[in-house]
């Protein structure tokens, strides 16, 4: 069996003249979770739709589970599961009816489909609601059923397109644990997300996508090293002391950001705990009162600022 589960070479796709994918390359190793991180409109969904055979690429080549997504579309469909951004369920039918139908379409036979449907409902804690119409499900329940539907075949490759967007923290935790248990079973997962945190938590490797291309690629650790790791936010009681507080950091100008309106300083840190105690001590010594101090992951905006620098700002201004 091949080592790679997904190979994408120079894939291009235009929608109404505007390129959604502009020569994207990607390699995903079998049995790993690969995060595709990017802002809205970066081309993440287009990539997933091409890899799951829903959309034909204009150019380039893509293989999933050893088959070309255009020429071997049917073969690919036998081997993939897809969780799109919006629930792909029959809202009028019940959970059991949905799963049974998808099982039948996957050639499980009537009995096999019923057995698999019952099994998945239990697995996702939906056994009590299996008869209720999906229309009446809560957002989290719908997402779980959608995930169950994408696992109907025990897929070799699973595509998750922003699986936790719009979910509450509990729903998010449920999806994350489901993804982790899948990977234990040998499934390859390609996951798109707007959240660095999510890519970090779940992925073995991450590709950062912008304007239809991969602009950075690596493990979460490698990427963090490139984008400067975590940050510390300090909110001062007295906004007038921002200048004094700023001078506590011996860093060049644009490394530390100052937000006057929110009385906020934000600086990169390398060692989280040492930075926290260091900042507290330095503020005390300088006699500056802090209202709040917090460590956090860089936001997607900050990641992009680092990876694309001024280039992006110029493009957006244009």
């Amino acid at each position, binding site marked *: 069996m091949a080592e790679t589960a997904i190979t994408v070479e120079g894939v291009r796709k235009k929608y109404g003249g505007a390129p959604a994918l502009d020569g994207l390359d990607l390699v995903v190793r079998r049995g790993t979770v690969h995060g595709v991180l990017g802002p809205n409109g970066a081309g993440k969904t287009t990539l997933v739709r091409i890899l799951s055979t829903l*959309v034909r690429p204009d150019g380039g080549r893509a293989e999933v589970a050893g088959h070309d997504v255009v020429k071997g579309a049917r073969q690919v469909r036998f*081997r993939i599961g*897809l969780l799109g951004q919006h629930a792909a369920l*029959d809202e*009028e039918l019940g959970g059991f009816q949905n799963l049974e139908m998808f099982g039948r*379409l996957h050639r499980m036979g009537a009995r096999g489909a019923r057995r698999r449907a019952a099994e998945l409902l239990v*697995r996702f804690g939906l056994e009590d609601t299996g008869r209720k119409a999906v229309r009446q499900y809560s957002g989290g329940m719908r997402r779980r059923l959608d995930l169950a539907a994408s696992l109907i075949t025990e897929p*070799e490759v699973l595509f998750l397109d922003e699986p936790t967007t719009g979910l509450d923290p509990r729903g998010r935790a449920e999806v994350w644990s489901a993804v982790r248990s899948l990977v234990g*079973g040998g499934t390859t997962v390609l996951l798109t997300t707007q959240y660095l945190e999510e890519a970090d938590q779940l992925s073995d490797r991450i590709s950062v996508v912008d304007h239809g291309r991969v602009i950075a690629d690596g493990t979460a650790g490698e990427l963090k090293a490139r984008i400067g790791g975590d940050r510390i936010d300090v909110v001062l009681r007295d906004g007038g002391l921002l200048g004094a507080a700023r001078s506590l950091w011996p860093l060049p100008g644009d490394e530390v950001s100052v937000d006057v309106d929110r009385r906020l300083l934000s600086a990169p840190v390398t060692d989280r705990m040492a930075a926290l105690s260091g900042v507290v001590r330095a503020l005390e010594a300088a006699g500056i009162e802090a209202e709040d101090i917090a460590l956090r992951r860089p936001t997607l905006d900050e990641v992009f600022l680092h990876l694309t620098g001024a280039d992006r700002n110029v493009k957006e201004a244009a």
Partner: protein
Amino acid sequence: MSTTFAHRGPARPAPVPGAHVLADCWTMTRRELAHWARQPVQVLVGLVFPVMLLLMFGYLVGGGRGVTGDYLDYLVPGMLALTMAFGLEGTMLAVTRDLDKGVIDRFRAMPMADGAVLVGRATADMLQSVLGLAALTGVGLALGWRVHNGITAFFGAVGLLLLFRFAMLWIGIHLALVAGKPELVQAVQILVWPVGFLSNAFAAPDSMPGWLGTAVQWNPMSRTATAVRDLLGGPGGEAGHVWAAVVWPLALLAVFFPLAVRRFGRLNG
């Protein structure tokens, strides 16, 4: 737990192209029937609506212009044809709802037979049309309408009506795929009314101004209604017009069936 999800890899049976076409079409038809079971009221309303129209035109409006003979004998075949024409709306709504909900995406990412989605739609809609014809015929008979030319002619007429419905079905699928969203369907729905009423369903074209009468006569629905009247022996039937009720729907099918299938295939554009 990991055993639940471990993929079977090469042990999975190799897919045979073209093999499970019937099974997939049946699965998709089952889905539509399950919708009926979930929403019996909607199905009922769909059946009652043409009956209501029949009662309204038969008793409230009472008699069509330019119709000689028993108006019920004229009206019932017209209503049967009109019901088939209005089936277009149901088809469009169902298709656009599917497109809007994203469930079509899941179907398309599955190794199911090409076109099973459309076949399921078509089968369910044709079944509903048979029910609609049965309901309308039953009420018509209860009101005193009679088939004059025997049972063979009656089934011939039913065949013509269903052929017309089949053509409307594929027009509906095509228009739904072009429109895309349920909101746009409402606009198209309005167009169904003039097409339905610019026909000889309720009144004889001879009674209308020249150009309107001509348009009405050319309406494919009028052709079907005329042929049905002819077969059932009611007023307004013209002998030898059955061929038009066969040719017109076939011509529409020849245009819209390939268009709809091609449009469906282009969802991956």
